[in-house]
C-alpha cells in the first residue's frame, strides 16, 4: 500500500514543477528528500510515472542513470568522500580508512542506527581543501583523524 501522505507530497512536488515532463530529474531529487532515508521507493516511481505520464521504464532509466539517486534506503546523513584525482593525490584513501574505522562500516554501507551512509562521490569542487568530503550539503576539507571524529560527534549530537 502506498502511504497516502507521501503520495500527496509527491503530487505536490509534481505540481510545483507544473507537471512538466522535463522536470523529471528535479522531481526525483525532491522526492528523494521526502523521508530521512534519502531514497526513492518503487511505489513512488509508479506514482511519478503515472502523474507525469512518462513510461515507467523511462523513469527507471533516469533513476538508475544518475548516481545521486538511490532505490534503497540510506542513512539520514550521507557521507560522500571525494574519489577524484585531486583528492586521491592528497591521500583520500586514508580518509576513507578513518571514516570506516570511526563508523565501523565499510564503503557503501549504512550504520546500524541508520544515521550515516558512507559512499564515494565524484569531484565536489573542493579541490583547494582536499581531501574533502560532503555530508548532506556541507563540505569539509583538509581532513585529519581528529577532525573526522569531531565531525561525526557533531552529527550524532553527542
Amino acid at each position: 500500500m502506498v502511504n497516502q501522505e507521501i503520495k500527496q507530497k509527491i503530487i505536490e512536488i509534481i505540481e510545483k514543477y507544473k507537471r512538466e515532463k522535463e522536470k523529471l530529474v528535479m522531481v526525483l531529487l525532491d522526492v528523494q528528500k521526502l523521508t530521512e532515508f534519502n531514497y526513492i521507493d518503487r511505489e513512488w516511481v509508479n506514482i511519478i510515472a503515472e502523474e507525469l505520464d512518462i513510461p515507467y521504464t523511462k523513469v527507471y532509466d533516469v533513476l538508475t542513470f544518475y548516481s545521486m539517486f538511490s532505490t534503497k534506503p540510506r542513512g539520514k546523513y550521507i557521507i560522500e568522500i571525494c574519489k577524484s584525482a585531486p583528492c586521491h593525490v592528497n591521500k583520500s584513501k586514508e580518509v576513507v580508512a578513518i571514516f570506516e574505522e570511526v563508523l565501523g562500516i565499510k564503503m557503501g554501507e549504512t550504520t546500524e542506527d541508520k544515521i550515516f551512509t558512507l559512499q564515494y562521490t565524484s569531484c565536489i569542487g573542493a579541490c583547494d581543501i582536499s581531501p574533502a568530503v560532503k555530508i548532506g550539503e556541507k563540505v569539509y576539507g583538509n581532513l585529519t583523524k581528529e577532525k573526522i571524529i569531531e565531525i561525526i560527534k557533531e552529527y550524532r549530537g553527542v
Partner: protein
Amino acid sequence: MVNVKINNIPVSVEEGSTILEAAKKVGVEIPTLCYHEDQSVKANCRICLVEVKGAKGLVTACSTKVTEGMEIYTNTKKARDARKTVLELILASHPMDCLKCIRNQKCELQKYAAEFFIEELPFEITYQMIEKDESSPAIVKDLSKCIKCGRCVEVCQSIQTVGAIAYSHRSDEYRIATLFELPLYETVCVHCGQCSLACPVGAIYEKSEIEKVWRALGDPEMHVIVQTAPAVRVSIGEEFGLEPGSIVTGKMVTALKMLGFDKVFDTDFTADLTIIEEGNEFLQRLEKGGPFPMFTSCSPGWINFVERFYPEFIHNLSTCKSPQQMFGALAKTYYAEKIGIPKEKIFVVSIMPCTAKKYEAAREEMKSSGVRDVDVVLTTRELARMIRESGIDLKKLPESEYDLPFGITSGAGVIFGASGGVMEAAIRTVYEIVTKKELQKLDFKDVRGLEGIKEATVNINGLSIKVAVVNSLGKARELLEKIKKGEADYHFVEVMCCPGGCIGGGGQPIGTVNRVRQERIEAIYEVDRNMPIRQSHKNPVIWTLYEEFLGEPLSEKSHNLLHIGTVH
C-alpha cells in the same frame, strides 16, 4: 544527386544518403550492428567506421551523410583495424556460445566474427552470465547476449509505444531493462515479439515449444492436427533461401505432412468464420447503436495493449475470438465429434507469424472446449527449424492440398494476413448481406498497404460506414487518443499489432523489415486473386458448419465457442 568516390570508384547518390547507403551502391557492405533500415540512426555500436579524406579521425558510415566530392575509404588499414578492434571489444563481453544459440547462423555478430576471423581475442573476457528471463509464455530475454545496440528499445518504445523495455543504468551496467528488472510477464509487455525481430543477436527470441510438438507427434495415442495462419505461407520460404514474397502454401502443407501431422488445416477457414460472426456482430451493433467504433479482435498483441493501456475501450472490441482460437474450439468439439476422437486425444498445433499467439493460447478463457483449445503455438521460425531438423528442403517439395473440412477457404480469409485484410474481407461480406446485391469490385485498395493509419468510407444501402485500418501499436495509440478527444468517429476499426499486419509479425523469419513486408503483402493479395472463392460467405463449408453444428451466426453455441465474454 551527390558525386562521391568510394575506394576511388566514383558513384552518384541521392542527396541526403549516408556513406553506408552510398557504399552499398558500389557493392561495398560496411559492417553494421546497431543500424536497422527501418529505424533511426543510432551510431552507438561504432563498427561501421570508415575513413573520409580530410576528416578528423574515423567516421561512422551509418550516420555520416555524403557531401559533394567526398572521398571515402572503407578499407584502409586504419579503418579495418578500428572495425576489428570494435568487434573484439564486443566479443570480449559476449558469451560466444554460438553453437548453443538460437540465432546460430542467423546472427549478425557471428557473421562478422566469421568475416573478420578473430582467432584470439586480445582482451580480457569480461562477459558476465545473467539469468535468462523466461517468465513470458512468448518471449525469452537473455541479456548475457545483448550487445546493447538499442534496436529492440526503439521498436518497443517508439514503434509500439509499449515501453516494456528501455535503457537503464550506465557504463558496464548499461542494459536493456524492464521496470526494476521485473520479469517480462509482470510488465506491460504485450508479447508482440517485434523486439525479437529487431535483435541482431540471440538476446531476445521466441520461447520455443518445438519439443512439445515432437512429443505429441511421437505419441501414437494422439491425433495431432495443425493449422497454419494466412501470413506463414508467404514468409516461410525465406527461411529456406527463397525470395521474400514467395508463395509456398502447397510445399508447406507437404512439409507438415512429412513431419507427421495427422491433418493439416488452414486458419483461413476460421478467418472466414470470423467474418461471418464479426460481420453479424457489427450489423447487430448498427441496429443497437453501438458501442462504436467496433475494433477487430484477432490480433492478440492488440488485445493485450487495450487491456494494459486503454481498458476503457475493452467493450469496443469485437467479442469474436481470433481465428486461431475459433479453430481450436471447433477442433476439440465439432471436429472431435465428427471423427469420433475424444478432445483429450486431439492435439492442436498452430503455426503462427506471431509470438503473442502463444500468450493468447495460454489464456484461461481459451478453454471453451473444456480443455486448452490450442495446445501449442509455433512461430514461423520454429516451424522452419523443425523442417530443417528433419532434413527437409522446403524448396524442393511437391505441393499438397489442405485437408478437409477446414481446408476449403476463401481469398477473404487469406488477406487476414495483411493489414487491412480483415476490413476488406468484412466489407466484401457485409455489403452483400445488407444490400443483397453482388459486389462489382472486390478489391478495396484504400485499406491496403504498410501505411500506419488508413481510412475509408463505405456506402452500404445509403448508410455511410466510416472505417479505419491501423497497423502497429504506436499508430493504434494515436488513433485511440483521437477517438478519446472526440476527433474521430469511426464505426469499425481494424487494428493489427505489428507493422504491416501479421505478415510482419514478431514470429516471422529474422530479416523482417518493411521492404520484405511489402513483398509479403503483395504475395498475400496474389494468393487472394487466384482463389476460386474470394468472399467468406461464399465458402460452402462455413454453411455446412452452421447447418451441422453451430446453427446460425451469433447463436448460443457460437457464443460459447467462438466469442468471449465482453471482458477479455
